[in-house]
């Protein structure tokens, strides 16, 4: 294959002398361009055109601004937009502050691997499952109020206050934080490994600064520079989330992404036009927010530089950091509590207010759902396994190609392969659906797998890129010196050394695939049911026990893979401590 490409390449080279010599990286790049680039480009175009009135199938042959007028005059539009912007920004800023503070307080006391194990359930749980559990935890009739009722509060019936779907979107922000905080924590812990934290801390302390201030002034800026891409991913996601918003966000009116989603799903096909306008606006909101965020970065950097160079001892960063870390701990506890609540509900028969535990327990719901679980469970597993497997092969090919061409570029945020996870899903999935319809692929397993791949691949690459680049190049050189071919070096040296990060990347890819809601719905035409689509469809049905079963399975599956990823390297390399990830 390589040789064939080279031959074709030589012919093209004779025509265009400036073309670089084709190599493995070009081949992988070309594959990625087709697999990632085409659906996204088509998706954006087929969303943008209807946003300006062009949709020949329903008689829209000319460009117009009518869809935008319809969007702007829709009742509650201004509120929808405000909720989207405020909840998205608040969730990202808070996730950043809390994660940095949490790391500042616990770093050095907690070993990474321990953190991995503790955070695994929160990382693995799909957004929808988490939202369902949290909605029960926080509701006026939920677990938290039951814990203190009626003995403390006097409530024998739940109070009439909006603690979920509140008009400010606080419940949505909490839900987003539960998912984004663990993600940022893992990313920050990984970034910290690249920085000589202990030395810098000693130097800072010697200069008379408190531990907290050294963290804020010296360490945090270095870490931030490394985690910029994940922060943008969090920002884009928080601004455009749909499945979580359906459950936790206010509904009267809902955030912009939900408005677009509901219109896309409406029976009246003319709604597609304002839906496309809303989806396009969502794209602008995300682009604008990332732009503003970059400006904010500069502002903070300028201020921070002035503050740092000014010196100034005696200020203590500790109280603020500890407060934020405590808040972070509360958020993480809420997350674990939500998951436990789901599990308890799935085992309940009746659980009336204000009982702290179910009044009647039963395995009945599990046994009755067993038959209904089989098909979506099978789909979920096969989809996740196939997309993650392909994504891993391509990611390894891409990184190995980078090694062979001698390019060791950093994972810059603007690299095109990360576009799928920086774009709001609602802004291009409708267009992608049009593409699959035209290719006669819609509703097929392949279409859903493809849609999942768009999101699985960037995360797998993101997880694998840093450990791959951190691999000491002297191993490969020694192997080459001993006469091993590059492929043999890859298989016998690099991959075994990287087993731990590869396993983690697989687990992340698996969890990303399991969690996909919109891509499954749009590409699958509803015919490919997964645990996530079933759980969200049933979340509207009000039987928490059944939702508990599905959401619990939905969490258990990626969690099992995640734990396997942590444990397998330790078994395989039982006699090689460093390779087993026990460094």
């Amino acid at each position, binding site marked *: 294959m390589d040789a064939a490409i080279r031959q074709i390449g030589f012919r093209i080279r004779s025509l265009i002398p400036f073309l670089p010599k084709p190599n493995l990286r070009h081949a992988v790049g070309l594959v990625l361009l087709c697999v990632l680039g085409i659906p996204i480009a088509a998706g954006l175009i087929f969303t943008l055109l209807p946003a300006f009135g062009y949709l020949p199938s329903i008689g829209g042959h000319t460009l117009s601004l009518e869809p935008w007028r319809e969007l702007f005059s829709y009742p509650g539009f201004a509120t929808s937009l405000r909720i989207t912007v405020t909840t998205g920004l608040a969730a990202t800023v808070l996730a950043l502050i809390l994660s940095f503070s949490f790391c500042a307080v616990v770093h050095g006391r907690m070993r990474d691997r321990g953190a991995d194990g503790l955070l695994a359930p929160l990382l693995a749980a799909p957004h929808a499952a988490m939202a369902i559990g949290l909605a029960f935890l926080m509701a006026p009739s939920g677990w938290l109020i039951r814990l203190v009722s009626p003995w403390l509060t006097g409530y024998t019936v739940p109070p009439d206050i909006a603690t979920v779907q509140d008009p400010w979107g606080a419940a949505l922000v909490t839900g987003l934080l539960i998912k984004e905080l663990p993600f940022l924590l893992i990313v920050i812990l990984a970034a910290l490994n690249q920085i000589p934290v202990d030395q810098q801390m000693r130097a800072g302390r010697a200069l008379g600064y408190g531990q907290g201030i050294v963290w804020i002034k010296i360490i945090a800026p270095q870490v931030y520079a490394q985690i910029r891409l994940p922060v943008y991913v969090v920002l884009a996601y928080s601004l455009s989330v749909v499945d979580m918003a359906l459950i936790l966000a206010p*509904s009267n009116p809902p955030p912009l992404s939900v408005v677009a989603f509901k219109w896309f799903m*409406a029976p009246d096909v003319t709604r597609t036009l304002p839906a496309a306008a809303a989806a396009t606006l969502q794209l602008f909101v995300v682009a604008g927010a990332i732009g503003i965020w970059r400006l904010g970065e500069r502002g903070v950097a300028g201020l921070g530089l002035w503050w740092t160079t000014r010196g100034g001892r005696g200020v203590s960063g500790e109280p603020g950091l500890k407060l934020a870390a405590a808040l972070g701990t509360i958020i993480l506890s809420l997350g674990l509590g939500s998951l436990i609540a789901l599990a308890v509900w799935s085992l309940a028969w009746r659980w009336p*207010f204000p009982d702290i535990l179910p009044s009647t327990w039963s395995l009945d719901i599990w046994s009755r759902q067993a038959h209904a679980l089989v098909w979506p469970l099978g789909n979920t597993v096969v989809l996740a396994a196939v997309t993650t497997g392909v994504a891993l092969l391509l990611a390894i090919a891409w990184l190995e190609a980078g090694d062979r061409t001698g390019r060791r570029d950093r994972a810059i945020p603007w690299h095109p392969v990360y576009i799928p996870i920086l774009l709001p899903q609602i802004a291009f999935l409708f267009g992608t659906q049009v593409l699959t319809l035209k290719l006669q692929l819609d509703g097929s397993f392949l279409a859903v797998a493809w849609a999942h791949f768009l999101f699985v691949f960037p995360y797998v690459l993101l997880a694998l890129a840093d450990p791959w680049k951190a691999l000491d190049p002297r191993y490969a050189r020694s192997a080459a010196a001993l006469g091993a071919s590059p492929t043999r070096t890859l298989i016998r040296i690099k991959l075994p050394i990287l087993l731990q990060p590869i396993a983690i990347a697989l687990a992340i890819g698996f969890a990303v695939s399991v969690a996909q809601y919109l891509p499954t719905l749009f590409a699958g035409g509803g015919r490919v049911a997964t645990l996530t689509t079933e759980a969200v469809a049933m979340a509207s049905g009000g039987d928490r026990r059944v939702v508990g079963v599905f959401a619990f399975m939905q969490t258990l599956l990626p969690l099992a893979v995640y734990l396997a990823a942590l444990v397998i390297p330790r078994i395989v390399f039982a006699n090689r401590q460093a390779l087993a990830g026990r460094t």
Partner: protein
Amino acid sequence: MTKTQRLTVLSVLTSAVMALISGFGTAHADTWQDIASRARGKTVYWNAWGGDERTNSFIDWVGQQVQAQYGITVRQVKLSDTAEAVSRVAAEKTAGRDEAGSVDLIWINGPNFLSMKDMHLLYGPFTQLLPNYRYVDTIGKLSNVTDFTIPVDGMESPWRLAQVVFNYDSARLKEAPRTIEDFVPWAKAHPGRFTHPDVRDFMGATFLKQALIELAPDKKRLQQPATDADFAKETAPLWTWYEKLKPLLWRRGEQFPADGPAARQLLSDGEIDLSMSFDPAEAAAAVESGLLPDTIRTYTLSGGSIGNTSFVAIPYNSPHKEAAMVVADFLLDPATQAHAQDIRVLGSFTVLDLDKLSTQQRQLFADLPTSPALPTNADLGSVLLEPHPSWMTRITDEWMRRYVR
């Protein structure tokens, strides 16, 4: 499907209709057997709202039965809104996918049926081909042939009945409102203890339609499409009434449960004392399955309440129409209907005319268990016809214009 195959199906269908017209019972039976044999081995993608666990289990059971009896696999595509399936078929038509559509059967009625019928997205008429259709009550249960004032014309097949009822917790509540006007004084005495589902959901809109039927100056007008002038005139008393009720609702009428089951969850959690439902047996069945306390009672308004029928329809581009018809027919089987009416299963009232059944078949219904939460037919009072769908659309739009900020 190739052209020849299509022609064969067409000729089979034509001969089936011919046989019916000429009244040859044997030929009819053969034809149905033909359809059933074509259906064998096929998979029916049944698009149905997935928010109700009992309905999902029932559909699962139907799948197991038709698999055993006819070799047909049923896959329920669980929708969070039936409109999703309508837009899917519409999108397929737009894309020119006239044969291998992705939807074989839809649980449908009212506005969704109207829009599919209008856009020519349905296959049919087919109900006259179904052997069990002869048991359907087309005289006493008018909603079986007129869906929201729209003639069904054999384009959808009935399978369950629905009627607006109210459920309350007798442990907390001694008196419940019996007329629409009663709701305001009742809510004053019990502020925050009642709510209706979001008006963008059909259940919420139905609550306002129920109020409209009682409050409109000219009730007959509601059976025709709404016009601007009539809409303003007929709904004026409705909005005056609603202005008084809204601030007394749960969350001061600023937030609403998404749909009927979400409202039932609120009732179960004790957040409200009174909720509405579109299924007279829902509460009894929910008590049976542990979803509601056994102190729940069901009643309906003294002036009668809105009722309608749930149907299944087959999209024009379904690749498995014969199999979909076999499933639709299975749903009308007296044994299936009796199973569905069991409160431990669905509890939904049958669409059949019990007088058309044999003694043995009738006995299946007589043997069903009962429950204190289950209203008798006398309790349910008279069934009021749904207004024309345009009233519902306009009510929803007007409600949003007034109350969504």
